[in-house]
């Protein structure tokens, strides 16, 4: 969700149209049997056990300190449900 000024809307529309227009060039290409490249080396997901790496309370404290609003170990946000 982003609020935009009228000026921004006009400018963005112009620039975004241009880029989308550019991509029409792709119509010249035969893409049917081409595999997409999502990651250049076609890597597989690296998974680990779902376990907390750190239980260091000082680290948690530091992370929470970065939050604009926090209380008792939680991030504080405005009311979600009335």
């Amino acid at each position, binding site marked *: 969700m982003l609020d935009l000024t009228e000026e*921004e809307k006009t400018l963005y529309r112009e620039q975004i149209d241009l880029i989308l227009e550019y991509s029409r060039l792709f119509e010249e290409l035969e893409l049917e049997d*081409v595999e997409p490249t999502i990651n250049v080396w076609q890597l597989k997901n690296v998974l680990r056990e779902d376990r907390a790496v750190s239980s260091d309370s000082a680290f948690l404290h530091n992370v929470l300190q970065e939050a604009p609003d926090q209380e008792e170990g939680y991030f504080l946000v405005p009311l979600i449900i009335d």
Partner: protein
Amino acid sequence: MKLYEMTACEAAAALRKKEVTSQELTESVLERISGVEGIIKGFITILESEKILQEAKKIDKLLAEGKKLSPLAGIPMALKDNICTQGIPTTYASKMLENYRPSYDAHVTEKLKEAGTVLMGKANMDEFAMGSSTERSFFHPTRNPWDISRVPGGSSGGSAALVAADEIFFSLGSDTGGSVRQPASMCGVVGLKPTYGLVSRYGLAALAPSLDQVGPLSKDVRDCAMVLDIIAGHDPRDSTSAKSKDNYVDYLGREVKGFKIGFPKEFFGEGLEEPVKKVIMEALAKSEQLGAEVDEISLPKTPYVLPCYHLVVSAEISSALARYDGVRYGFRAREGDTLSELYRQTRSRGFGSEVKKRIILGTHVLRTEHYDDYYWKALKVRTLIKQDFEKVFRDYDLIATPTSPTTAFKLGAKNDDPQTVHSRDNYTRAANLTGIPAISIPCGFVEGLPVGLQIMGRPFEEGRMLQFCYALEDMLGVKGYKPEISVEGGH
């Protein structure tokens, strides 16, 4: 010669021979900063002199005790401000992270700390690394040391300008579509984008995660290899981090006779300024004098690089920047009494114009009804572009092109004309889309402004790439030219 004028390697050698101390090097750099930084404005944050000098003295003590440290121990440097530094502001040049002090160091920050280098501060950049002039910084523009009425390029413009102005011995930048190489070219320094995966992205603010790489900016090719030796290597915290690593300095000075270099005709056509072309062709002629075989080649998918890049990068940006919501860190708008209003206000007011534009483009191309037409197609085109390069690399060791079709442009001149923006930045994108390593080295001047030669190589063959660039740098004879920084401005 002033101490700050030395290359990192020369300064390191003087340290080992006990001709200077890290403290003296640092004091010299601080003196330089106080002399020219008011004009250049390459930093967002400069650390307190006292703290920096303390660090330098610590290294001096360790060296005096005979402690084994890296070759660059005691050398002052700077990091682009999208690389996390524990407890030190890391702003991404955005209002969104204006007051952010990370609770951790990026992998590359850790590496450079372990190596005993001395962090002087954080370098200016375009907001969230989106831009190619450093004029999109939330804080202030940076000026090109060769002509202060011109931009340093971007997005790592601060990192490049600081090295060119001798305010630091080397720096790190990040490169998603040319953001290390293009400013390196415009500031007359060496800038390397390593192979995707060679350097860990842990602690680098994500822009487009499948394209981003951290890379060094330095005064010459040897310094570049020395920094790469420190920052390259596997890191389990970045699951795209590769297991291969080499000893890059070992390649320097080796014979380059018989190297096969291709220059793609698609990079030498319309849009390339004639005087820039001339300088590049001269550099290619010198490559032949080194015994390299230089041929014209073709990369026929080049016209598709730009639309492909824009679609991939915007899609990834819209996803990567979703995390800035005013809840866990960074800016929070105080208005709005519901959570969704908090998101809306925070993002609308925290992000600059270019950032918002790219998020909108990204979400647009990822919409279900457009997904196949735009994003998915772009990923397929990316495969074709990659195959183009693979084919050339079967016969050629390296590909040579201009880094940028022009020299540095005037501050304010670039504006928002997307057509110019696009054609100007077309030469560096392919290396990010294909993951290959690419470097820009200074190869000459046009009307007193530096021109960069881009060399691209096979994946994980930075060693051979640096080997060639080291030999060519010597042959070109432009190394060591320094800008005269004056308030007058030139051209």
